[in-house]
């Protein structure tokens, strides 16, 4: 069964799994986990360089931007202004226009500030960025972001790093139904079945970091997530059977012995 391609900002991708690069023991483990996941898009954070430790290796030495689409995020930004500034700096590094916009509204939940996210998205789209916003699982907010010109919408499944899985599949179903841009579930995935569930709902992709990096064996979990995203996508395209209250026999009811 030939899948349709997954396109983001004019570029086609085979893998529908996007992985973060945070919380790993070291860059070598980051690289190995990314390879196991089969992801072609990796998120990174934008931070001040370490002035005192100049010999420090750089993440891009392990994740070649010619091989991976680098997706800088605006994690840690609490205002539209900070997020815009971060994106402008990220673009200047020279890995493209794609950015993961996140404007955090609350430190404890890490839920997005939707108003500030919309404000930042408007400015960034005008400046030529290909914006992928992290947003609440709010169908109206997702519509607005799509109208502004974002190249994808990325509703959360549950709070970042919570591992709670898909908390509101019904909202996600509405978001998917009305979307004209790819819908990527971003944040909240805990294990492989969560990723498969997101894909079975009809999401175009899943973005995760903690679920892989925080697993006891990150490399094994990276592979599990790769398979889960593929399985979920295939199941979605295959078309699942309807849910019924009562049994329908799988074996013939005729020709019984007796």
């Amino acid at each position, binding site marked *: 069964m030939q899948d349709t391609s997954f396109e983001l900002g004019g570029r086609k991708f085979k893998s529908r799994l996007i992985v973060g690069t945070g919380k790993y023991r070291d860059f070598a483990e980051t690289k190995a986990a990314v390879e196991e996941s089969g992801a072609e898009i990796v998120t990174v954070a*934008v*931070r001040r360089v370490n002035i005192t430790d100049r010999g420090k290796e750089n993440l891009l030495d392990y994740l070649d931007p010619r091989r991976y689409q680098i997706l800088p995020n605006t994690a840690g930004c609490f205002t539209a202004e900070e997020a815009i500034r971060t994106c402008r700096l990220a673009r200047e590094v020279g890995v493209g226009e794609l950015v993961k916009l996140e404007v955090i509204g609350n430190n404890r939940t890490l839920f997005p500030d939707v108003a500030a996210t919309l404000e930042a998205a408007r400015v960034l789209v005008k400046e030529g960025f290909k914006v992928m916003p992290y947003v609440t699982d709010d169908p109206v907010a997702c519509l607005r972001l799509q109208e502004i010109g974002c190249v994808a919408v990325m509703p959360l499944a549950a709070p970042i790093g919570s591992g709670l899985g898909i908390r509101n599949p019904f909202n996600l179903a509405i978001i998917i139904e009305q979307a004209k841009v790819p819908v990527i579930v971003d944040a909240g995935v805990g294990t492989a079945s969560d990723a498969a569930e997101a894909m079975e709902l009809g999401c175009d992709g899943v973005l995760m970091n903690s679920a892989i990096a925080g697993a006891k064996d990150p490399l094994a979990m990276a592979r599990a997530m790769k398979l889960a995203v593929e399985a979920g996508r295939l199941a979605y395209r295959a078309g699942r059977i309807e849910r019924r209250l009562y049994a329908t026999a799988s074996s013939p009811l005729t020709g019984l012995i007796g």
Partner: protein
Amino acid sequence: MPDSVASSIILNGDPYPLPGDMRLTALLERLNMRRGRVAVEINREIVPKARYDATIVRAGDHVEIINFVGGG
């Protein structure tokens, strides 16, 4: 000439001594940073890579140099 402290900039939020005004390219070399891995702001203005050679870092300038780190 000795590498004496003649001026100081604010680099990533902290005072950083410099022997004098210098080209941004020289500052990056001094810091052992590759231009393909970083982005630079001087006094809140982004400096395009093509202007690194022509840009002079002066005493009192607020310089921000960022790079990519692990993140989700």
